[in-house]
């Protein structure tokens, strides 16, 4: 397999509040290869958005700080990069689409203004050229009457249109990596289908690698090649889409899949994971899922399980699979060449 374009290695992002330190991201490692779509799945508060913000070096500091770990983008460590260097990378080589299309555009500037700004920061082109490429981009993302829309303000567009503008902006400099943080959560299903279709097209045609952060397993099944499941700041399972959805190993992933109401399934009582998501905490001993786990035994409460890896790249953080995955090595010992 080729060299990953983006590598997150043992990332720890902590938030410091008045009286405690919260490990929102606690030792996360993710590889993203060229042309690949990797999904990060988890419920609110599991650290998936903080992971993506950490990659972009956009974690608000204070209160947040990357206390440990490395993020390699094409061999360069982003955690060491200066703000000036980061600004060159952001929007140019790595772009991000945020969840809220309503709030991520500036209401005081026209769509054209905002797109032209993004283009001119990274490319040496005249305003006129930038405007024509802005119109071209809007056409590309399927906005009707693009030449009029460039002169309109965000409030004149619907949610789906605004999200398309965000995608156009993110694609303006042909980034190699696109981080999409819940890009369709605020949208209706028919619009969601349009946006996912668009992202898939960009991935196929331009070989853009996509890191898709979502809580919707349906979206994951449609879009992703590989999936990383997060729980309470840690990766609990990683594998290909088929492995995760068809043969989940970790009790949390299993519960998550079983608790989905299925449009195809017959009437049966929904499974539900008891309890609620535990907030990450530094003095937590043992597996973070143990309080909600059906299979928890004594060891789960005392010791934190390592992420076990199979040769195929399949990873599970659970004591139940220690025997099954004999040849596995703990993820922290993985070497990055």
């Amino acid at each position: 397999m080729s060299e990953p374009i983006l590598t997150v290695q043992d990332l720890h992002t902590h938030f410091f509040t008045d009286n405690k330190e919260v490990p929102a991201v606690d030792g996360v490692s993710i590889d993203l290869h060229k042309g690949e779509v990797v999904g990060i799945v988890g419920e609110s508060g599991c650290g998936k958005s903080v992971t993506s913000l950490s990659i972009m070096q956009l974690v608000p500091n204070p209160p947040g700080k990357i206390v440990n770990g490395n993020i390699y983008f094409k061999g360069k460590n982003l955690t060491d990069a200066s703000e000036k260097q980061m600004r060159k990378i952001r929007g140019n080589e790595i772009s991000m689409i945020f969840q809220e299309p309503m709030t991520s555009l500036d209401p005081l500037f026209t769509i054209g203004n905002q797109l032209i700004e993004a283009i001119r920061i990274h490319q040496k082109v005249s305003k006129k050229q930038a405007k024509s490429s802005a119109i071209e981009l809007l056409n590309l993302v399927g906005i009707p009457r693009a030449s009029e829309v460039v002169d309109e303000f965000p409030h004149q567009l619907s949610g789906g249109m605004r999200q398309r503008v965000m995608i156009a902006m993110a694609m303006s400099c042909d980034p190699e990596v696109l981080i999409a943080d819940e890009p369709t959560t605020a949208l209706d299903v028919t619009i969601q289908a349009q946006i996912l279709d668009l992202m898939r097209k960009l991935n196929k045609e331009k070989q853009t690698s996509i890191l898709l952060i979502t809580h919707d397993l349906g979206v994951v099944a449609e879009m992703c090649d590989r999936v990383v499941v997060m729980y309470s700041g840690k990766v609990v399972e990683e594998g290909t889409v088929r492995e995760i959805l068809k043969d989940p190993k970790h009790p949390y992933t299993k519960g998550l899949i079983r608790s989905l109401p299925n449009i195809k399934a017959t009437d049966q009582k929904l499974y539900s994971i008891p309890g609620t998501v535990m907030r990450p905490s530094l003095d937590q001993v043992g597996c973070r899922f143990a309080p909600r786990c059906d299979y928890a035994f004594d060891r789960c409460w005392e010791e934190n399980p390592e992420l076990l890896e199979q040769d195929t790249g399949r990873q599970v953080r659970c004591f139940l699979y220690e025997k099954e995955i004999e040849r596995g090595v703990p993820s922290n010992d993985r070497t990055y060449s």
Partner: protein
Amino acid sequence: MTEPILEVSHLKKYFDIKGGVFGKSVGEVKAVDDLSFTVNEGEILGIVGESGCGKSTAGKSILRLIEPTDGSVKFEGTDLTDLTSEEMRQLRKNMQIIFQDPYASLNPRHKVERIISEPLLVHGMKSSKERKERVKELLEIVGLEAYHASRYPHQFSGGQRQRIGIARALANNPKLIICDEPVSALDVSVQSQILNLMEELRDKFKLTYVFIAHDLSVVKHISDRVGVMYLGRMVELTDKHTLFEDPKHPYTRALMSAVPIADPDVERERIILEGDVPSPSNPPTGCAFHTRCPYAMDICKEVRPEFENVDDKHLVACHLYN
């Protein structure tokens, strides 16, 4: 066949658009435009549709939390639109609502005790001891503990807050509960807990739900019959199995095909609709869906299709079937 508990006929709700120097009405938003359906006792009727299709407005108009512009709503034979506000207030004892946002629908300054006991007080339970007992009982019914009564809403998670909202709705033993997107603000694992709880309560207290949601798989799971709304109108209504196996209206078909399924092996034909939902202040003439419909004919642009039976109890508003 059981009697319908709720009968909605030709319900309309238009909101005025105010403009100009004198704030005159310059137009109307037709949020709900000629909506008719019935709900039988003990059943769960799901209403699905995209944002802006008028499903929440319909829910609120039924309870007269928003005054409907036209049409009638009959609850157990009484026409609600004729009642005075005092009579309506009395009747709301039997009809309750659960809101979407568990963070906004509970007063942050009141303790849970007060939030749940307020409807009891309003409907005449004067003794504070009785109320305390009832609150305790309600909390246990929805899966919380009695000691939670002395806490404030911010001390609870989203799922727990939604349970408090449910307890409040149950306080006066209602017959009908309108659930306005009760699980859309919740995480998947919590969502399934609340859905299960709502089903349990239905069986236990013989409740009737009107379940409004935008998530088709949730609606499919919980409902007996499902109605699909588009731009203020009902386009299709039938029992859930027929609807999901044999959808007739082109909009329903597109909606179903757009739902992502968490199974990589499912191959299916996806219908991607062009464009956005038109504005309800200026809805298209004829069939409201004709601007996005792949099968649109000339007649669709001019004549509004009637909402009629095409099969046994399968109502569709589309010229293709008439």
